[in-house]
């Protein structure tokens, strides 16, 4: 196996407001039956990366439960497989992970014990499909010290990302981190948070960072060294988003109402895997009116639902109307409810006769 996989899944996000109060971003439920980490994990598995370490820290229980068995992503192997790297107290260290680089530094012994020549570091909140072997090939061909996956995106949609400037060869020559100023027109190239580096080189860089007490992968180990280090780009030309804000989360879920996008991720080989549950199929009772909506297993629909994504075991009562909503697992919508433009967090109960209409430009969260 050519590369070791590391998935950074330690973060919460203040931009996701109350949604990450009970789970890490990487555990955010998506598209009705998936979680955001399924995409990075499936990409690893589908790229034949045999050993994957998931770095967790923030509110990790939900993520740990999701990852409680590695069989769903075919990581239940005798050799390699799936490792969870939680922060631990040791005689030498009593800190939490103080940043992305520190998370790796604190697991340096794990990285050193491996034998793979390369490391693929991916964030756990990206929604995309990518054969990492293509990035590895480009990395080797260009003789880069590090290769970073990036994507060209409209400026208006990519304010919250690191913005990169490339030279003619694709080398990254400048990097503005989460710069929200400037014009909203045109396109820019942004960082997708997927890094390929030689394992031995990574160890060297991390040891240096540990000595200098630098703990952030991007701001400490990459941006200050763009001049000296040959850091190359790999441009992704298919769907990519991350779900680091409420709007991005809402839009990403609604993107899956597009049959072409579902086909791309869930029908075209290789597909995204997830933990399979034991829910019965969705039930549509007499009087149900469903239009342009996803309805996951275990759900029971009596009323009307449109332009919405319903996760597992959602109940919609008689004569209720749900429009432009994301209803997460186990949401109960009573009878005669009007619900529009909302994200409803799991296990929320909405009483009979409730009327809630949110602002479509700033979707509120109900939890």
């Amino acid at each position: 196996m050519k590369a070791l996989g590391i998935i950074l899944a330690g973060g919460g996000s203040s931009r996701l407001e109350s949604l990450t109060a009970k789970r890490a971003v990487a555990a955010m439920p998506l598209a009705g039956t998936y979680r955001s980490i399924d995409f990075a994990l499936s990409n690893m598995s589908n790229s034949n990366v045999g050993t994957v370490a998931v770095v967790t820290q923030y509110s990790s229980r939900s993520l740990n439960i999701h990852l409680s068995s590695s069989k769903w992503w075919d990581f239940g192997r005798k050799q390699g497989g799936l490792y969870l790297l939680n922060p631990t107290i040791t005689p030498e260290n009593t800190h939490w992970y103080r940043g992305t680089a520190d998370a790796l530094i604190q697991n340096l012994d794990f990285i050193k014990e491996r034998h793979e020549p390369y490391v693929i570091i991916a964030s756990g909140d990206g929604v995309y499909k990518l054969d990492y072997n293509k990035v590895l090939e480009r990395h080797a061909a260009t003789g880069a010290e590090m290769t970073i996956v990036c994507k060209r995106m409209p400026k208006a949609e990519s304010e919250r990302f690191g913005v990169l400037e490339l030279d003619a060869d694709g080398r990254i020559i400048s990097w503005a981190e989460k710069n929200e100023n400037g014009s909203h027109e045109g396109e820019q190239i942004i960082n997708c948070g997927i890094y390929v580096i030689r394992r031995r080189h990574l160890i060297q860089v991390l040891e240096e960072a540990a000595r200098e007490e630098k703990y952030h992968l991007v701001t400490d180990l990459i941006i200050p060294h763009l001049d000296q280090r040959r850091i190359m780009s790999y441009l992704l030309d298919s769907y990519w988003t991350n779900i680091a804000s409420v709007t991005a989360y809402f839009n990403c879920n609604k993107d899956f109402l597009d049959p072409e996008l579902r086909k791309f991720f869930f029908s075209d080989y290789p597909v995204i895997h997830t933990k399979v549950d034991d829910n019965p199929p969705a039930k549509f009772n007499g009087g149900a009116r469903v239009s342009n909506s996803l309805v996951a297993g275990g759900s029971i629909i009596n009323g009307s639902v449109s332009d919405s994504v319903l996760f597992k075991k959602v109940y919609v009562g008689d004569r209720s109307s749900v429009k432009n909503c994301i209803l997460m697992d186990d949401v109960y919508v009573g009878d005669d409810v009007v619900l529009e433009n909302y994200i409803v967090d799991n296990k929320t109960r909405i009483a009979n006769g409730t009327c809630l209409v949110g602002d479509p430009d700033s979707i509120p969260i109900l939890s």
Partner: protein
Amino acid sequence: MKKQMIAMLLAGGQGSRLGALTQGMAKPAVAFGGKYRIIDFPLSNYVNSGVDTVGVLTQYRPLQLNTHIGIGIPWDLDKQFGGVTILPPYEKTGDSEWYTGTANAIYQNIEFMDRYNPDYVLILSGDHIYKMDYEDMLARHVSAGAEATIAVMPVPWDEAPRYGIMITDGEGRITDFEEKPKNPRSNLASMGIYIFDYKTLKKELQELSDVPNCDFGMHVIPHIHRRGGRLYSYQFNSYWKDVGTLGTYWEANLELTDLVPDFNLYEEFWQIYTSAEAYPPAYVAEGGKAETSIIGDGSTIEGSVKHSVLGANVKVAPGAKVRDSVLMNGVVIGVGAVVRKAIIAENSVIGAGTRIGEGFFAASRLDPRVYNSDITVVGANSVIPENVTIGKNVAVIGQTTAEDYPGGVLESGDYIIKKKGGRA
């Protein structure tokens, strides 16, 4: 090491009265309820009852069943000691034979049962839909001091002549039984679910080993009865459905779409487990309609579906109408096609504009014992071309083309069976 009770699941039968549905697989492997296979019900009953050691006896077309069960992961039956073991007939020195009867099949697997040194053995067949606590039945068996206990259920008196009827005393001890009696003395029908003391079972099987086609109902139970052995009944009073005919199979599926079905899959208690792939949720498009139906994960509904059960990854194209039907995984219904009262098995494709279930009932020209209702059946992996009209009580198996439908019509009661390279 030992197990208190192990289970032996008889899953080798063809289920020939399911016609086209069991062309390529044994009856317990037939899909049910939009996600499940019939065998999931006994397997889930085992784990919910605390039975963790199961031998599954296969014989007729076992591939689908083997693939489905695998190493038993969905039912938590992947265990170090115990778990699920597939038991096909095997060659022996001297007297090799197929499984010739229910008791004969168990007799041929005494070696398997001995490994677990059980006190009790639960024996049943994998072709009924029900939720039953076998632990409760065992408690009854133990407290009665029975050698064998037979699960029974009360049936309407006028239906009793169709069953094996048990006559019991006040204590539930079986005093007599009659197979399909014209004038029944009781309405307690045997469900074909037995708990035996293993010592009794082994002794009986060995004594009766020379009986041809040795069967529990016909030979073993009467033999115990004749020698005055302690036979008890265990009365079961909830939902139990034999899905052995096309009519009952269709009915049991469609009952799941009732507002509050008698057999409820949506209860947290006594969950049914199955081996399924990960799919995105079901999608109903703008202009699509799904009502009084169960729709499996990954399905896309652009047409209209009413009073039907759809499996995973089914596609109903725009303008298509599906009514009163059971569509299994991967079925594709073309643009504007109309499907009425049909059972369409896995991955079959119905061409655009085709109409199924038209006209009036006519007796089957293929096999009136199997095809005797107004349900039309399409076997797995079949193809039906565009713009043909198919009547009621029809069977279609295989990849058909327009030439197979003279005048674009297949009349009620008619059939097409296209055999493909070596199969069927």
